[in-house]
């Protein structure tokens, strides 16, 4: 070794020794205590905001690429314009996702340093390598997708669509990867008979990722993101419709709102079942989670969820009702009486069937499937029909009945410990609070909504849509749907996190802070509303910035009133 090399080595050695000594003498950093909100709520706000932005940037591209493909296949420029306008907003919100993600990590590290290090250490490969790489790949592909929109036209369009598909694959993989640590916090990997604390020391990364709630959470979030993306598209359309300067613009944004809502509602129909699957797995992981959710501390959160789901289904059916009004010739459309009869009978019959043969017993399907297919199979042979207007009114009635069943609690108390006779369902009617009744309520909501869209579809085949002539109230319905969907996401996100009870990671890493209790529903509602409003403010700004300001270019003919066949 040469002299200069030896000197350099000694210098590094000295720096290491004195540096470490100096560092060791640095006093501990002061602890962080967020004023007014407290640490837990501060983390909640930032995390929820991050998830809302992330949900949009993952959900929107799924139907953006579908819309682009439809435009290409049907040679209808409206789809291409829709896709491009939504992706413009997505690009702006992408930076907000990264910003809130970074903020989330900083706040988490400052407020819960021990837990954050513990979690990062368990998933080091994901946090340090896989996730950043996926994020970089997604950034590159997203910007490529956006900036090649105009240049990859005509013959190159298929290549552009393929790029969109690649973007969605990366997005979905990113979601699945980050769901690993998230779901692990709720249902950490365990082995039968072994201590969870001991098992986790030897568990592989895959063991930790592939935990009980990982795949249900993946599916729930995937479907939820598409719903969310659809409703936000509806929101964009509503804003633009309100600010439209001429009939052509109004016609286009009326159409865009309809498409966004259609995709949102289409995905929404699967959401109760995805939520059910997630809850089922959580209860399967630890049966004590079930009463905590449904009968104890969080039971009223689920009542509120029931109310929100009911309102969302009512609003989506009301939008269809208003959409029907702008179809010329709708009064000629008639529906088989069987559809109406099945709608009315469904909640009662299925409550009985599922009580006898609980889910997932296949025998219940032997009743359910023939029943819901009855109007389609036998409808054309039975001459009795009702007007579409009457059929949709019955569907509203059944949404209210279904929602009433969904929301009927076992008792009007926030915890089973305080249940008294004056607040409890009579024993003869206690079945109304059990899962068979709740499942039948969910299937009723889904079925009547499908019937409403089926009627709408028949109406547009027989009549002519006058785009742009929709009742102005429909724009508030679109805004309501987006607001309520975001609010419900916030509520259920809070529920999923609170299910960990007084643990950072359920049964594994306790939360010793004074904030590890279950907050009240009212307190949670304040914050959920606040988070929703902040998110709305940013999204509204992004819409105005990207679409209203750059609107000066004229869009020829895309939204002119069109016959039904041209949609």
């Amino acid at each position, binding site marked *: 070794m040469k002299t200069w090399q030896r000197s350099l080595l000694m210098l590094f050695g000295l720096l290491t020794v004195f540096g470490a000594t100096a560092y060791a003498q640095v006093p501990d950093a002061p602890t962080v205590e967020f004023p007014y909100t407290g640490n837990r709520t501060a983390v909640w706000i930032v995390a929820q905001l991050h998830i809302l932005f992330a949900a949009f940037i993952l959900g929107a591209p799924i139907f953006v690429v579908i819309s682009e493909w439809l435009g290409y296949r049907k040679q209808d420029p409206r789809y291409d314009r829709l896709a491009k306008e939504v992706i413009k907003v997505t690009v702006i919100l992408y930076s907000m996702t990264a910003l809130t993600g970074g903020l989330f990590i900083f706040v988490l590290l400052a407020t819960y340093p021990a837990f954050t290090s513990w979690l990062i250490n368990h998933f080091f490969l994901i946090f340090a390598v896989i996730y950043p790489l996926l994020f970089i790949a997604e950034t590159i592909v997203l910007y490529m997708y956006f900036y090649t929109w105009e240049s990859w036209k005509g013959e190159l369009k298929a290549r552009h669509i393929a790029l969109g598909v690649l973007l969605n694959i990366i997005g979905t993989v990113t979601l699945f990867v980050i769901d690993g640590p998230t779901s692990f916090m709720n249902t950490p990997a365990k082995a039968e*008979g072994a201590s969870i604390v001991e098992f986790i020391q030897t568990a592989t990364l895959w063991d930790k990722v592939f935990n009980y709630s990982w795949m249900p959470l993946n599916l729930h979030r995937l479907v939820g993101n598409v719903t969310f993306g659809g409703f936000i598209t509806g929101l964009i359309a509503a804003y633009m419709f309100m600010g439209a300067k001429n009939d052509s613009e109004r016609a286009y944004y009326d159409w865009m709102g309809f498409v966004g809502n259609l995709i949102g509602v289409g995905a929404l129909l699967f959401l109760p079942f995805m939520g059910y699957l997630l809850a089922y797995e959580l209860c399967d992981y630890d049966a004590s989670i079930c009463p905590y959710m449904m009968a*104890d*501390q969080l039971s009223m959160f689920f009542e509120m969820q029931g109310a929100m789901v009911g309102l969302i289904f009512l609003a989506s059916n009301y939008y269809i009702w208003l959409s029907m009004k702008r179809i010329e010739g709708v009064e000629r459309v008639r529906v088989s009486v069987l559809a109406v009869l099945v709608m009315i009978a469904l909640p009662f019959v299925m409550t009985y069937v599922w009580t006898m043969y609980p889910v997932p017993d296949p025998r219940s399907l032997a009743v359910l499937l023939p029943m819901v297919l009855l109007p389609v199979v036998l409808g054309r042979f039975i001459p009795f029909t009702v007007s579409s207007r009457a059929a949709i009114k019955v569907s*509203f009635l059944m949404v209210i009945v279904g929602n009433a069943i969904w929301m009927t609690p076992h008792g009007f108390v926030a915890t089973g410990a305080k249940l008294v*006779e004056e607040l409890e369902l009579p024993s003869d009617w206690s079945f109304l609070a059990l899962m068979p009744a709740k499942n039948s309520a969910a299937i009723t909501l889904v079925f009547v909504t499908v019937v409403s869209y089926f009627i709408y579809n028949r109406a547009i085949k027989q009549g002519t849509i006058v785009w742009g002539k929709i009742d102005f109230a429909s724009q508030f319905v679109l805004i309501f749907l987006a607001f309520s969907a975001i*609010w419900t996401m916030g509520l259920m996100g809070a529920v999923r996190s609170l299910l960990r009870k007084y643990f950072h990671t359920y049964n594994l890493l*306790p939360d010793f802070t004074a904030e590890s*209790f279950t907050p009240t529903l009212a307190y949670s*509602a304040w914050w959920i509303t606040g988070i929703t409003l902040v998110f709305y403010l940013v999204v509204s700004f992004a819409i105005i910035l990207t679409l209203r300001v750059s609107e000066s270019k004229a869009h020829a003919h895309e939204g002119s009133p069109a016959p039904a066949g041209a949609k």
Partner: protein
Amino acid sequence: MNEQPGFIKNIVKKGIVGAIVGGVLFGAAKAFGFPVIFQYMFVAYAMLGTAVFILLDAPALPTLGGMKALVALLAFYLVLSVVYIGGASLWPQYDPEDEKGKIEKLLAAKRKASDLGKAEELIARAKSLSEKADAIMQRLQTLGGPAVTAPAAGGAKAGVSAAASGDLVALGKEQWELQECYNCHKLYGQGGKKRGPEMDNIGNLMKPEEMKEKILYPRTWMAEGFEKEYNKKKMPDKYKDLMEDKDVDALVAYLVTLKNPAVKTPKPIKKQ
């Protein structure tokens, strides 16, 4: 404008129908023995239905633009926010105070074993020593005055809790509450949702060591008639991680006292 009288007629007509439906539901709920709160709930659904059906036949909203649209939008957001916060506040609220003491007890042992707990213990000891030193100093100063009693080591709180009394059965009953066993097991006719067997006569059916084995390793025993629950692993396999050995012993001591043959507690079957 000519739609206005028609809409008012619509409101009146639907309002009357809604009131009749609400009245019928209220009466029927009363007749079927539903508590008052449920009767009101059914009336609320009738009112919701009325509002929905009024809305269905409401005249079209005129197109708004510019500032009017913006004001309408802001007002709409305000209404939504108030309705959602208000709606959530109307439901019965869980009192976090009920849980705080419970969590403190549940995590006490883990907290003590953690770095945080060790640091807290050191601080508490230092504080205790300092208080003792103060007391001695005070005594020296008074020279023959009344003795100053030093506070208990560790600053333990005074209070008549099960732990303080040292009653093992009372401690076990406390564990029954803390671990929320009542959510699955009925006892004295209270709690339980058929997830687990009634426990009133368990003291006559199992030995203490068998009970302990079942709590720590749920697959070792099955209650007769609960095959489905056993196969679905309904009893959580977590108490060996969550409970201290002395807490399990206390719970067992409590369960041993449950000897009421009038209640049909199912027979335990040894499985593994």
